[in-house]
């Protein structure tokens, strides 16, 4: 199944954050989204996941097409996400955090389902810990665990390695690859760590000023003069 974004435009108070973005995402594929600050990466994720209603454009997935979707409806369609600034439920335990998604987006015993999602990320002995008291790296992983509980077609991950050290970043990368392999979902990955992007992505899309300026394999993108000029610097 493909997720297709057609001519997506997003304007805030006259500022154009997305300027006609067309994108095709495939299941089983990890796509990296890079570009300078303010180039529209997070805005694209926000529009795709229903945080914002786009000024123009629409999406198509399977036989469904929409131009406006709420966060909740997007989640029910299997478009799941994490957030740039971690958004957990501060008073919840690890187990409860994932149970919420299992309860609302999955059938069957919500505790059993949550346990499965947590075990996939090796959360075993941390189940009863309070989410906000976990280490930063664990919090990032917990966000991912919550995002994979229940229906999952596409996983949108916004800077999952921000603030992590090299080992923790490596962990996250392996987790994402494993989720893709086991669940067969598509993954959209925004990250500032180019090493991560270059290593893990099947395809990289470069945004600048709300437009796609380049896309292709990591190697192609890395040597694209337009990318070097707009982002990497020379």
């Amino acid at each position, binding site marked *: 199944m493909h997720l297709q974004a057609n001519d997506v435009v997003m304007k805030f108070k006259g500022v154009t954050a997305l300027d006609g973005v067309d994108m095709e995402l495939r299941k089983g594929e990890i796509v990296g989204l890079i570009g300078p600050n303010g180039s529209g990466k997070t805005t694209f994720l926000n529009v795709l996941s229903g*945080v*914002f209603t786009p000024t123009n454009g629409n999406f198509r997935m399977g036989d469904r097409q929409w131009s406006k979707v709420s966060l909740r409806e997007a989640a029910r369609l299997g478009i799941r996400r994490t957030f740039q*600034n971690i958004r957990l439920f501060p008073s919840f335990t690890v187990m409860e955090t994932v149970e919420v998604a299992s309860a609302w987006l999955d059938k069957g015993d919500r505790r059993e389902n949550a346990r499965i999602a947590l075990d996939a990320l090796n959360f075993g002995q941390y189940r009863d810990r309070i989410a906000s008291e976990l280490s930063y790296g664990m919090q990032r992983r917990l966000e991912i665990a919550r995002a994979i509980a229940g229906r999952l077609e596409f996983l949108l991950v916004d800077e999952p390695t921000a603030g992590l050290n090299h080992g923790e970043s490596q962990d996250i990368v392996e987790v994402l690859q494993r989720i893709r392999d086991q669940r067969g979902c598509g993954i959209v990955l925004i990250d500032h760590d180019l090493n991560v992007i270059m290593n893990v992505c099947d395809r990289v899309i470069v945004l600048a000023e709300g437009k796609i300026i380049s896309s292709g394999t990591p190697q192609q993108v890395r040597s694209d003069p337009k990318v070097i000029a707009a982002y990497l610097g020379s």
Partner: protein
Amino acid sequence: MQLAFQQFINALSLGSIYALVALGVAILFSILRLANFAHGELMTTAGFTLYMTLASGWNWVLAVIAAIAASVVAALILERVAYRRLRNAQPLTLLMTSFAVSVALQSIFLLTFGARPKGIELPAFVDASFRIGGMRVQWLDIAIILITAAIVFGLTLFLRKTVIGLALRSAADDFQTTRLMGVKANALFVGAFVLSGMLAGIAALFYFATVPNVVPSSGFEPMLKGFIACVIGGLGSLPAAIVGGFLLAFLEVGSDALLSDNFSPYLDAIVFLIAIVILRWRPGGIFGVRLTAEQRV
């Protein structure tokens, strides 16, 4: 026609009082995100001050000044004692604190003055009226309307022309960047509380001039009306507070005029119900923008 004109004056006068209360509430909410339920008790403070000073024979001008000063001082004490250490607290914590402060102040009034209403000995000119074309118009109403207009005008000038006024406006928009301009955070808080206290004091003068009795819970009703004016206008915006205040007053006077006398005791209930219906369609108030903080991801 004559009746309609008289009702119009009534609504303007009542709306002026509500607008002043709503403004005082909105100033603190816009800058500190503090819903100060104790605003009513600032008014009660002015009311008791008015009662005591007039009862002990003060000149009314001095009594008026004393009443406003009492409100301002009370506001400053609240800032220092109750709210300063909660500056970074959750909105719900602030809300509950102000609710508790309101109850505590009412209890202190009760312990000090007792539950019996204290009649305020208003100067005779409060009842003076004049006639135009067969209509009796109270000078008091005219004074309330004109003074409120002058206050709104003065406040606008203050907020547009003085640096502290500009800083109060910018702090409501973006507190951090205001500090980046070198503006002292404490000065902003003190400034906001002084303004709020002044508005409470002036609103109290008008309120008690129309209802010349003061009891410990006197401030509750005007406070609630002021808050509801803010909420139907759009919480946090000063112009919305003024519009909300007048809207509420026109609803009140209008309902009273249109409904039969049987319904007049239910007036508050009817007006609040209409307000709730408005909120059904515009949960953020008439001018409300959805708070952006929630949408910032």
